[in-house]
């Protein structure tokens, strides 16, 4: 299948900053959200995003087109974001097959479904809980979640982007969702 970025890639490989700038314009937000999904803060995501594009521009001559440019970009971005998170939190155990911490109980949440001022508090409570849950995930699990739940990649695309087997993709996703569910379990029980 022809890569829609072929022409811009070809010109970028010849050194055209204008052509590469169009690739940046096209994919900046995609890379940023990916980095944000792993790092959970804006400044870190911005730094990683810009580093990724500078690195890709330097190395684009080596891009052979064996995968789509977008897939390559995902992989560079995931690796860069994970490296950045590991530098921030070097003491963390980053095993991708962590089991739930049985000693940890999810907090009790009561969401008030009535319309009015309390709705806003509930929304921000929920976001805080989601963030808390995401912070407990390893970088690999965060990457799996953002690629699936935000970028809506297929499992195969995720496997290519992450450079892992399909089974590992599904296992990471399953664990990440399970972990999130545990913390938000009371919310889900309302259905």
């Amino acid at each position: 299948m022809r890569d829609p970025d072929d022409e811009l890639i070809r010109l970028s490989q010849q050194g055209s900053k204008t052509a590469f700038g169009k690739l940046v314009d096209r994919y900046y937000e995609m890379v940023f959200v990916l980095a944000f999904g792993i790092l959970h803060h804006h400044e870190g995501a911005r730094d990683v995003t810009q580093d990724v594009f500078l690195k890709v521009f330097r190395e684009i001559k080596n891009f052979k087109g064996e995968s789509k440019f977008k897939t390559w970009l995902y992989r560079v971005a995931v690796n860069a974001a994970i490296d950045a998170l590991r530098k921030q939190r070097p003491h963390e155990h980053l095993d991708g097959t962590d089991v739930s911490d049985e000693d940890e109980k999810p907090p009790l949440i009561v969401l008030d479904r009535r319309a009015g001022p309390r709705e806003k508090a509930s929304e921000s409570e929920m976001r805080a809980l989601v963030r808390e849950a995401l912070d407990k995930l390893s970088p690999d699990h965060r990457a799996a979640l953002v690629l699936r739940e935000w970028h809506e990649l297929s499992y195969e695309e995720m496997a290519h982007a992450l450079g892992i087997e399909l089974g590992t993709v599904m296992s990471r996703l399953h664990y990440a969702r399970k972990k999130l569910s545990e913390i938000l379990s009371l919310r889900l029980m309302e259905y």
Partner: protein
Amino acid sequence: MANGRNNDEIKRLYQDYVAKELDRSRLLQEKDDFLKAYFAGWPLLGVLQFLPSLVLIVMIAVLVWIDPRILHHPEKISTPAMILTTREVFGEPPPVVIKRIVSRTGPTLVYQKHYEKHPITIIWIFSGG
């Protein structure tokens, strides 16, 4: 299936979280800044936007060159400056001519040495005096 429903809920919560946490306007501004800093060529429009300013500067320069007096606002004065005293101090020729002048600016001393090729004039104004 409960599992499928849970997954849909997780997706919804996740998307809601990211959408609300993301400062999109800041993101777009940072993208523009980044593009300008590293990947922008020299746009034609970028040059043209300076054109009106350049034209104005050239016009002012031409006008000043034609008549420097346009930079000044000549003011009519009723009392012109007056030379009170003049004296010459003899030393190495030519002598120094010192003039005491009364003017609206204040007491003024003018020192002149009339070298043939490079006459020197020093005007010393004691303003507010």
